[in-house]
């Protein structure tokens, strides 16, 4: 099934506008909220039996997509299309965070980010060689996690005091027990195989106050993917993500000791609820030194992640600069205190 959102004014294909949060018509400028767009302007066409081949309703061209794509542009006429049958049933996202960073803002934010790179080569810093920017909704699973932890530990309190010419060191040992209820809400893990996990983790956090119930028109004008891994497959990844959080919480509940050694730590975490959610990501493809570098930008907060090229000259410069200036500073202090330079 192919869906076009037709402008009630002029009939052109509307796309989601990140600034207003509405559907926007590029030809006449008409705006329409997602909730009020009349049903007759949502043009659906079913390709029965032809699950993988879609036809553009505008020009009739075949829309070629990968099997995971749920929103794209018609390769021929450029009209934004949403592939609805890939977003229904089990594949229907529950939530979405719409883009709030527009393409122009994304370009500006990326340029600003490249200028801030203190170790990147000079040519990279101009940010002028953006080859392609793609706004993409990346599928994530959000997990509500509930669990409990049973902790046993031995804590020590050490006191040192002096009587006459003897130093006494007194160590008190305590058996420490804790039973802890744990609850974590909407911990994300990206469900797309194509996306680098480390890169996606660094894009966090997203602001969940903008989390909306999913509606297809949000996708118009962007690319979107459906998940490659289901929530069962990804749970272990989320678990490994929150274990350090749980550990650090446990350590805050045991205080007042000089040292704590855990003798038993049982953490039992289960997923209570999962939400299939689409997060907005700007993918930036950047040419530098005949190599393409890929960066990702949080489409809500503008945070940029990705490995920039590193200039070894600048690294050396910073290193010698910091080393030399701190050496001089320490020498100056030593001279002020001791009165001798060497």
């Amino acid at each position: 099934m192919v869906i076009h959102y037709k402008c009630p004014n002029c009939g052109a294909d509307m796309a989601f506008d990140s600034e207003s949060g509405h559907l926007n018509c590029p030809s006449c400028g008409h705006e329409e909220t997602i909730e009020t767009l009349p049903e007759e302007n949502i043009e659906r066409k079913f390709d029965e039996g032809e699950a993988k081949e879609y036809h553009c309703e505008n020009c009739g061209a075949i829309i070629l997509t990968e099997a995971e794509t749920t929103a794209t542009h018609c390769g021929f006429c450029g009209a934004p299309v949403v592939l609805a049958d890939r977003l229904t049933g089990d594949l229907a996202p529950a939530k979405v965070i719409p883009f709030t960073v527009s393409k122009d803002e994304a370009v500006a934010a990326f340029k600003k980010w490249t200028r801030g790179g203190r170790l990147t080569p000079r040519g990279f810093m101009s940010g002028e060689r953006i080859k392609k920017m793609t706004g993409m909704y990346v599928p994530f699973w959000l997990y509500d996690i509930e669990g409990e932890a049973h902790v046993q530990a031995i804590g020590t309190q050490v006191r040192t005091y002096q009587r006459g010419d003897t130093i006494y060191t007194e160590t008190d040992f305590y058996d420490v027990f804790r039973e802890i209820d744990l609850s974590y809400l909407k911990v994300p893990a990206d469900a797309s195989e194509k996306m680098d996990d480390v890169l996606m983790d660094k894009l966090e956090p997203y602001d969940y106050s903008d989390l909306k119930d999913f509606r297809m028109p949000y996708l118009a004008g962007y690319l979107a993917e459906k998940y490659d891994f289901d929530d069962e497959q990804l749970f272990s990844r989320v678990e490994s993500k929150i274990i350090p959080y749980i550990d650090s919480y446990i350590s805050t509940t045991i205080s007042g000791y000089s040292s704590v050694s855990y003798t038993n730590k049982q953490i039992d975490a289960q997923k209570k609820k999962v939400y299939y959610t689409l997060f907005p990501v700007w993918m930036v493809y950047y040419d530098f030194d005949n190599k393409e570098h890929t960066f990702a930008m949080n489409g809500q907060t503008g945070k940029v992640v990705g490995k920039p090229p590193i200039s070894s000259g600048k690294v050396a410069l910073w290193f010698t600069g910091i080393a030399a200036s701190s050496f001089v500073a320490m020498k100056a202090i030593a001279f002020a205190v001791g009165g001798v330079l060497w």
Partner: protein
Amino acid sequence: MVKHFSQKLAWALLMGLLLIACGMPAFAQAADLIHDEAGLLSGEEAQELEALAEQYGAEQDVDFLFLTTNSTDGQSIEAYMGDFFDARADSTGQEDAVLLTIDIGGRELYLAGFGTAEQTLDSERVELVLDRIMPEIQAEDYGGAFEDAVVTSSEYMEYRPGVNPESIFLKTWFHLAIAILLAGIIVGSMLYNAGGKVTTTPGTYVDRDHTRVRSQDDRFRNKTVTRRKVPKNKDGGGFGGGGGMTGGGRSFSGGGRSF
């Protein structure tokens, strides 16, 4: 040609006069610094040390004195060297001095700072110098010990009074190591964060309403006590630390060791 020659001659004469003028007091004092009554040094060695003491003494504006004896005539080594210095200071008028005394009969040595050296070579620094020269004393290289004492003392006297000259914070290698470490850490973290920082914290996704300690118990189990003696500040052979007063009323910093 003749004019040229007479000019050269005039220069040579002038230089000669200057040399004599400078050298005179040095030669006059020369025999006064080393008092090797126990005969621990050869004549040649004594001359070399004399020159060395002369050179360093001029830099620090003190006399570096070396006194050896076979016997302190029943006195303590402090009193003996005090009497020696009183007599010398009364006759020469030089109150600023560093005096190393070796009593080969009693197998003791004492290092003292008089006048300005009481501050610039305080008792704490005396102990450091003694630490440095003890191996040479034990190897019976008394000349070497004096030489080391002179060099080390004048090195220490460069430092502001009260500062520990052997403090690690004043060492160049330490400054260099810290500088390199600091630069490494800063540039390393810049490199590590060049691709974007992880800004989620343990608090990002926690549900504060439902994450809590349900029950807790801290039960005292047992107690251990360990005892140890307060370590002594001085090692076995040390005495007379902190200096004192000579019979003639001159105060000094100093410290002694047995060997």
